[in-house]
């Protein structure tokens, strides 16, 4: 039995776990809920490992491995099946999703131990795993969209997990509604693709698309429009400008959720979709350019907001938005494997950072404001060490994972033909900001003087179930990038090599010539990147350790900039004024007061009132008096007789007149 024939097992296991916990978990003790939730994801992880092992032994002509289980929708020429597909990209995503997901499940058993709705949490979390796996395994856009919507649903449920808190419920709704805008574009994109190619299955669709002539730069051809529409969906899910606003608010959910869904996996779905559709994107240079610009702008924009946030999770949320921008920047310059590479390393270190921040919050008894922390490094040693590892990784210090992936993106951006230097410059600037705000987080949280009431807050290290996942993720954050390391001494980048069968189909072009120049650039650019990261560290160190009063002075002297950043460029307020308020006005004063009350309700009520009035009138004939009924019967009989005999009467009278 080969697992590749039974691929459905991988997503089915978490679904089973979700169903068991959701249906029966309420009565079960926490231990059984744990076993079911962690066990099902663990088994799923091992199934994915086995699938990956078998995949590597497949003959090249069998790749991509597509397994058709049953036909889901048939309408005319259209067919959408429950088809699962495995290729190099899927394998990578599969391992990251199940692996990181499993670690976060284990962590959650410690983090959520004292929370109400324990079984509900794990049921949702498993449900998320199911949909995410469907998303990465899907062999056509329709099934992918099922997973896409499903993870959105799980995200909504988990953001609003503390649904008694209004802010959490609102954040859930916000996430769902903002995503809906993106999904609208995604669906239109799918329709256009079906209209143009007659299929939504990946393999035949891409096979048809590959030989077609690409759209010209600046022209809105079919490829460009379809790609831009799909990218709209990706913007919603992956929190890019201008649809990023839901992600920071999504931090209302429990921290493991932020780690799993809003950092490591779900939000990367947009990047995955763009990478999956890379053949379409390479045919649409305009769309690629837009992707690169949006990614770059988001990376920079979100990083600037991250500089001044005081909530530890919000800093990480903006950092996530910023890093997702990096991934799109990579996709936009046709460096898809670099984008996926960053997706993976980011999954490691951002999951680590979120889980570590969860551990900090746990230790502080629920406090999230960094201004009420400080000097925690001694008290929660392991959390500190792991979080520091994550910080070094995201800041891009060699030889940690973030260094390799970020470096690869910056290198590709630098080499890109359209506006490469500017993209590179902003990317580098973002790297500087990233390094700064991450070390600011570390210094504010773990160093300096304690700014909390030491008598009230009993700081304690987290249980093993939380620390072990942290350590594993820390290890992954260190070694996760080494697959690409050989590029520095001229050997092939193993990660890019592994994904090559997927991304080479598009015919990106003169790869060898680019490689030659890449080697020449690799080292100098890497040095620049490291210097940048160091600079960020030094500035943060100087501001928050050496001169603790300085940040406040700076904030005062640059009041305008500071408050703008603190209020996140007033984007939420602008959206509220431009979109939410007019919509509410339209809904309440036009749709409700006029259309609903005066037209729809008035019509319905009018018909009802008419019937009542008619009844009121006719009611008087029903006197209840037998004799009056008799009169009606007689009158009726007379009328009928008159009608029947009318012609004869006429003949008789006319005849008489003559």
């Amino acid at each position, binding site marked *: 039995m080969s697992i590749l024939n039974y691929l459905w097992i991988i997503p089915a296991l978490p679904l089973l776990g979700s169903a068991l916990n959701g249906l029966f978990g309420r009565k079960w003790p926490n231990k059984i809920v744990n076993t079911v939730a962690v066990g099902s994801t663990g088994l799923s992880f091992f199934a994915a490992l086995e699938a990956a092992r078998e995949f590597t032994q497949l003959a090249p002509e069998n790749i991509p491995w597509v397994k058709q289980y049953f036909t889901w929708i048939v309408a005319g020429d259209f067919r959408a099946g429950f088809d699962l597909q495995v290729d190099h990209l899927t394998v990578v995503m599969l391992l990251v999703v199940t692996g990181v997901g499993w670690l976060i499940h284990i962590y959650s058993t410690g983090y959520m131990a004292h929370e109400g709705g324990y079984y509900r949490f794990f049921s949702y979390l498993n449900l998320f795993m199911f949909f995410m796996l469907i998303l990465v395994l899907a062999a056509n856009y329709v099934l992918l969209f099922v997973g896409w919507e499903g993870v959105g649903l799980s995200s909504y449920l988990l953001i609003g997990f503390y649904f008694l808190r209004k802010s959490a419920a609102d954040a859930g709704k916000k996430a769902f509604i903002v995503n809906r805008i993106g999904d609208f574009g995604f669906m239109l994109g799918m329709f256009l693709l079906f209209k143009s190619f007659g299929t939504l299955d990946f393999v035949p669709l891409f096979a048809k698309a590959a030989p077609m002539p690409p759209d010209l730069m600046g022209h809105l051809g079919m490829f460009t429009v379809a790609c831009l529409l799909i990218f709209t969906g990706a913007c919603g899910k992956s929190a890019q400008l201008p649809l990023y606003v839901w992600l920071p608010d999504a931090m209302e959910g429990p921290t493991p959720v932020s780690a799993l869904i809003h950092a490591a996996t779900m939000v990367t779905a947009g990047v995955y979709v763009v990478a999956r559709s890379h053949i379409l994107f390479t045919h649409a240079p305009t769309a690629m350019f837009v992707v690169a610009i949006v990614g770059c702008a988001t990376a920079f924009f979100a990083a600037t907001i991250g500089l001044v946030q005081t909530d530890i999770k919000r800093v990480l949320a903006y950092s996530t938005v910023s890093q997702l921008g990096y991934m799109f920047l990579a996709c936009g310059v046709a460096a898809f494997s670099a984008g996926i590479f960053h997706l993976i390393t980011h999954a490691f270190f951002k999951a680590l950072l979120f889980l570590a921040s969860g551990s900090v919050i746990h230790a502080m008894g629920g406090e999230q404001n960094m201004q009420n922390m400080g000097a925690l490094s001694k008290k929660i040693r392991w959390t500190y060490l792991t979080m520091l590892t994550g910080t070094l990784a995201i800041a891009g210090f060699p030889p940690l994972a973030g260094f390799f992936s970020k470096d690869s993106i910056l290198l590709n951006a630098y080499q890109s033909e359209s506006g490469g230097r500017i993209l590179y410059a902003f990317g580098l600037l973002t790297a500087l900001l990233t390094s700064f705000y991450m070390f600011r987080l570390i210094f504010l949280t773990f160093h300096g003087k304690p700014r909390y009431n030491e008598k009230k807050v009993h700081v304690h290290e987290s249980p093993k179930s939380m620390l072990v996942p942290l350590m594993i993720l820390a290890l992954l954050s260190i070694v996760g990038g080494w697959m690409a390391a050989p590029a520095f001494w001229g050997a092939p980048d193993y990660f890019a090599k592994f994904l090559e069968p997927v991304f080479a189909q598009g015919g990106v072009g003169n790869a060898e010539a680019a490689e030659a120049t890449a080697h020449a650039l690799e080292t100098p650019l890497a040095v620049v990147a490291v210097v940048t990261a160091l600079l960020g560290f030094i500035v943060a160190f100087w501001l928050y350790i050496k001169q603790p009063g300085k940040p406040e002075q700076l904030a005062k002297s640059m009041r305008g900039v500071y408050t703008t950043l603190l209020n996140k460029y007033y984007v939420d307020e602008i959206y509220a004024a431009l979109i939410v308020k007019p919509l509410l006005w339209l809904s309440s004063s036009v749709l409700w007061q006029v259309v609903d009350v005066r037209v729809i309700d008035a019509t319905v009520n009018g018909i009802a009132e008419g019937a009542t009035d008619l009844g009121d009138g006719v009611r008087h004939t*029903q*006197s*209840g*008096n*037998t*004799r009056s009924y*008799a*009169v009606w019967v*007689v009158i009726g009989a007379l009328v009928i007789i008159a009608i029947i005999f009318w012609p004869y009467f006429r003949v008789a009278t006319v005849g008489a007149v003559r």
Partner: protein
Amino acid sequence: MVPTHYYLILSAVLFGLGVVAFIFKRNIITIFMSIELMLNAVNLAFVAFSQALNKLDGQIFVLFVIVVAAAEAAVGLGIIILIARNRHSLNVENVDLLKL
């Protein structure tokens, strides 16, 4: 031999009397009797036509009408007895519970 239209005129007069009594009388038994009168007026017309046309159809119909009338009398009298028991009255004006 008596001409057919004599029978028919008599039948019409009887029927008219029945209708008038049906409408204007208040006693349920009288109303019931007026229904019988109307039925028998119709019977008379049937046999008159039967004789005039020299066909048996009309007479057969009369038998049917008599059977129906007998059945109606059984049910109708039963209803009347029930009304009399429950209302202690035979006045049809009092039987108007369905009135709004």
